[in-house]
């Protein structure tokens, strides 16, 4: 049908051109006949139809070529998988060619749009997947997706850091319980036991060592929502709660210590005050004694409250120091003098080695005196009867070092790092038997820091301790 209409059009075009040519020839011949130019008119009569024939052939050829090209491309489409790549535009001004070219152009535009859409969808999917990956890795809690046996399928960066691994590959495919156990000093940790023995969802805490500072993790194991793929059925969340646990312990310590330190003197004050109020038979000397006790207990209470406020304010940066040029030798004399009653009571053998010429230091005299008194007081307090306490002062190019050594009960290496923490007191029963607020060394450490110095404690259990307070020369 296509061919028939094409043929009809071709024939009609040819006839049209031929007729036009013939008319031109006839009119030319008639005109020239009158000019009596027979040869010219024969030549003209011969050239014109020939020209017209030639023109008609060229135009016909072009039309036929366009039709052939379109027909060929349509044939190729029927056998080719890709329609768009098969189609080629035609170079021609013919109406059919123009129509064909428009068709090809639209098909190519559509193809380009489809490709762009496909690429965009692919990029968005990839971005979405990457976004979730970024979210997963940005979480501060350690997350692992594991199978029923606790073998890790996926893990985020936070868990890699918690387990002190370098890369995710180090952890993939390994048992999460084994990895947690490797970070814990004791296999008998209660949390680990629960994770090994209790199936299904579990929430527990795992302590890396008996020292809270070394790390406490809250581990939450739960089932993944439905739709999980094979090998991914449990979600593990590991959160580092060390700081929370330490804050909790400090609060408990504070409550315990404050209660004890406030209650005891208050109880004594109340008891003696009641006795004085109710018992009229007490002689004057005894009354005086009772008043002295009340006074001493009130002083103890006041000192505890002051220490507490001072340490809190220092930690908060709310206390400043008032520096003045201070004669260190005289300061030391005052501090030692203040401790003489305790030295005598404990029968301590006290020695001091102080250089003959000590530099003047620009310090807050009261605070440094209190700090030194704390250290010396502790040395005396925790040294058994007739033990040794020694004060040694050294000066180097940058610091003055006040060393206070004793042959006292010392402290274990485990507890040593915690000395100087607020309210910390050793669990040693000998220490617990002696009154103390656990604030003295915390205060001393803060004083040292405020002056740009530091406090260092060395100790050996049952052998003794050495506390060094170092203050800068300038």
């Amino acid at each position, binding site marked *: 049908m296509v061919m028939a209409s094409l043929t009809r059009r071709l024939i009609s075009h040819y006839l049209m051109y031929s007729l036009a040519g013939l008319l031109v020839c006839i009119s030319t011949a008639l005109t020239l006949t009158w000019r009596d130019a027979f040869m010219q008119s024969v030549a003209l009569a011969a050239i014109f139809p020939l020209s017209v024939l030639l023109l008609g052939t060229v135009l016909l050829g072009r039309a036929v070529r366009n039709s052939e090209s379109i027909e060929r491309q349509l044939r190729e489409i029927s056998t080719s998988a890709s329609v768009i790549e098969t189609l080629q535009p035609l170079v021609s001004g013919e109406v059919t060619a123009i129509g064909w070219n428009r068709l090809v152009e639209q098909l190519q535009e559509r193809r380009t749009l489809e490709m762009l859409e496909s690429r965009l969808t692919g990029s968005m999917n990839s971005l979405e997947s990457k976004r979730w990956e970024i979210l997963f890795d940005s979480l501060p*809690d350690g997350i692992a997706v594991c199978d029923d046996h606790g073998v890790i399928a996926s893990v985020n960066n936070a868990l890699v850091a918690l387990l002190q691994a370098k890369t995710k590959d180090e952890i993939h495919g390994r048992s999460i319980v084994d990895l947690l156990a490797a970070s814990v000093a004791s296999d008998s940790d209660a949390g680990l036991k629960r994770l090994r023995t209790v199936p299904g969802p579990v929430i527990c805490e795992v302590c890396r060592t008996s020292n809270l500072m070394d790390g406490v993790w809250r581990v939450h194991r739960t089932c993944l929502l439905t739709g999980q793929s094979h090998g991914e059925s449990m979600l593990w969340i590991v959160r580092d709660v060390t700081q929370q646990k330490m804050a909790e312990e400090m609060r408990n310590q504070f409550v315990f210590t404050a209660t004890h330190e406030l209650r005891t003197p208050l109880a004594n004050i109340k008891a003696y005050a009641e006795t004085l109020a109710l018992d009229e038979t007490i002689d004057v000397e005894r009354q005086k004694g009772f008043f002295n006790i009340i006074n001493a207990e009130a002083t103890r209470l006041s000192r505890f409250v002051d220490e507490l406020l001072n340490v809190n304010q220092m930690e908060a940066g709310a206390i400043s120091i008032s520096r003045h040029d201070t004669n260190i030798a005289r300061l030391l004399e005052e501090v030692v003098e203040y401790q003489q009653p305790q030295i005598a009571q404990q029968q301590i053998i006290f020695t001091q080695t102080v250089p003959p010429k000590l530099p003047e230091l620009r310090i807050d005299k009261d605070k440094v005196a209190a700090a030194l008194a704390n250290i010396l007081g502790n040395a005396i307090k925790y040294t058994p009867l007739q033990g040794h306490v020694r004060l040694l002062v050294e000066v180097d190019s940058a610091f003055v070092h006040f060393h206070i050594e004793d042959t006292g009960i010392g402290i274990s290496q485990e507890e040593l790092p915690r000395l100087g923490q607020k309210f910390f007191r050793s669990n040693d029963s000998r220490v617990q038997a002696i009154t103390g607020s656990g604030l003295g060394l915390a205060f001393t450490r803060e004083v040292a820091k405020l002056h740009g110095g530091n406090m260092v404690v060395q100790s050996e259990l049952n052998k003794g301790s050495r506390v060094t307070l170092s203050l800068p020369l300038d």
Partner: protein
Amino acid sequence: MYELSKQGAVHIVSGRVPMAAEYVQMALHVFDNCFGHGQPHIVLHMQGIPLLDSAGLELLLDIRDRCLHSGGAMQLASPNALCRDILRATGLLDHFAVFDDVSSAVGSFAQ
């Protein structure tokens, strides 16, 4: 210079010199000691740091990114007025949690 101390599980880095190009390597060396022990929780105590330059700012961002990569965090404590202005002018103030004192900064990790 730069010193490292610990309060609980939190590393506190204190500086006494500007956080500037000539001191950045020293500071980086101190910060490096905060990593590799679990999730890094770092407080940069800036009371003694008089100013920051571009190298210092870059270091802060690097350390922050390293912390975030491990699920940890770095807080800034007690920056002086100049450091605060530098952070604000460079648009970095919103990238860090800034506290008025070390205690608050350390305490934020316990919440």
